[in-house]
């Protein structure tokens, strides 16, 4: 395995230390715990929003902490749920009296640990509510969860919920719009390679030189099927149509589109993919409001991408455009 790494045991903490050192104006770390918090606390009385999941999906989620977006993020070990005690500590830190919304993806480990943290917060009188992203249309009941998985589309939910919270609405209002967003997002992805975790040092699953895994999970869990690799337009058409048919998205709908690189795919290829997505949407009469093309929720060094469509209304469009100050920038 070739990685920029010192030791597997230290990689997550060194990553977080690097992130904090690079953005002292926006975020800071909590000593002794893996918690990334906004530099300036949100105003009193506003609902706080925090997320957490395994590390290995960067920029998800520590890079989404900042003004206008997350109050805090709790990164777990690579591909493992964050521990309840860290989530609980983060909850106490970010609560501004209006409660805390936990945005998580549908995986049993995350549900269990956040469930515990919610109980612990409740004992302290802090109101919490868990919203679960399950946007993946690929499979149901796979090896990491019951029901559909939460994948890159969850980032849209984060954006919507955080923008709504900035407006000073109630916990219930933030939860409601997050759930509404979730019900309007669908995602489908595929992998051209597996990924290599620091601890294992070798690919998490075997994929032949000429094979791809359709509907792969974010940790390399099995998808729908393993097939011979096809030309871009063919794979992209298949995945996009799976997404369109699932909601279904219809002619006249307005959407946000995310073409999410899984970590091992060059930007060039993501735009080849989007070129086909754009054509399919145009033909289907589906209007594109905004595109999000790049790495939003990766799987370490997996080659491949996922395509998400998010059906919008006027309020969702406004919330998507709400300004954020987070540690992600081009210039």
């Amino acid at each position, binding site marked *: 395995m070739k990685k920029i790494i010192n030791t597997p045991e230290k990689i997550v903490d060194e990553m977080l230390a690097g992130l904090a050192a690079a953005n002292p104006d926006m975020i800071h770390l909590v000593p002794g715990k893996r918690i990334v918090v906004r530099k300036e606390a949100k105003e009193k009385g506003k609902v706080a929003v925090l997320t957490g999941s395994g590390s290995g999906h960067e920029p998800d989620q520590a890079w989404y902490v900042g003004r206008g977006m997350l109050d805090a993020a709790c990164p777990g070990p690579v591909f493992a*749920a964050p521990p309840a*005690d860290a989530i609980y500590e983060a909850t106490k830190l970010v609560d501004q009296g209006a409660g805390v919304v936990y945005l998580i993806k549908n995986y*049993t*480990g995350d549900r*269990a640990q956040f469930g515990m943290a919610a109980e612990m917060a409740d004992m302290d009188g802090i109101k919490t509510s868990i919203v679960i992203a399950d946007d993946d249309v690929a499979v149901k009941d*796979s090896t990491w969860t019951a029901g559909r998985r939460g994948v890159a589309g969850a980032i849209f939910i984060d954006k919507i919920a955080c923008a709504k919270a900035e407006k000073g609405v109630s916990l219930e209002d933030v939860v409601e719009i997050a759930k509404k967003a979730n019900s309007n997002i669908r995602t489908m992805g595929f992998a051209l390679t597996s990924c290599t975790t620091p601890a294992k040092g070798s690919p998490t699953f075997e994929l032949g030189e000429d094979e791809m895994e359709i509907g792969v999970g974010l940790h390399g869990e099995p998808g729908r099927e393993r097939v011979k690799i096809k030309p871009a337009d063919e794979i992209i058409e298949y995945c996009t149509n799976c997404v369109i048919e699932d909601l279904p998205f219809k002619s006249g709908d307005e959407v946000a589109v995310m073409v999410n690189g899984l970590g091992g795919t060059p930007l060039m290829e993501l735009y080849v993919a989007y070129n086909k997505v754009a054509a399919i949407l145009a033909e289907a009469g589906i209007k594109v409001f905004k595109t999000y093309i790049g790495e939003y929720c990766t799987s370490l060094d997996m080659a491949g991408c996922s395509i998400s469509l998010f059906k919008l209304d006027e309020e969702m469009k406004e919330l998507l455009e709400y300004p954020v100050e987070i540690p992600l920038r081009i210039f």
Partner: protein
Amino acid sequence: MTSNNTAVQIIENIATTLMEGEEEITNLDAAIADGDCGAGIKHGFQCVLDKMDELKNLRTGDMFKKIGMILVSSIGGTSGAIFGTGFMKFGANITKAEEVTPAVIGEALDAALAGVVLRGEGTKVGDKTLVDALEPAIDAFKLSLSEGDDVNVSVEKAYLAAKQGSDNTIDLIARKGRASYLGERSRGHRDAGSYVIVLMTQAIMNTVK
């Protein structure tokens, strides 16, 4: 039975027994899941042993609560949350009691089971999980106490019930956890979590004999 010393001994024996049983737990888990149960349990209880000097100075209930919290973070994932919740709920109920009698222990065990079931999102006997051993063990313990048995007899009955419950998991199809995605292929293998409960009850039995 109610002195903190006994509780400390029980914890230490549970930890030792589980750590000695790591390989078997791992093999069971690897057969139908991802094989990380043994390592996780071992790591969790090692973390508990590492903090024992501090833990033994706590009141019994608080000690179990703290142990639960250590297990949640150190084992992690769903298993950590489930085992941790069990210890935490047990401890919380012990803390509330004036005096730690066997009856109080029975109620605390009920609370522990309820916590485990809640964290597992509605786990039942027959789902092929730790609950298949834990619920019969607790039922046997309480029944035995109500019939006037000495506590060490009740604990032995709990161990035997756990063992039977774990044996029963062999022929079940898993309905929870990673093994549940194997469907029919999970049949013919013992559930690792239920085996962990067997080892725990065995350790408790050997301590109070």
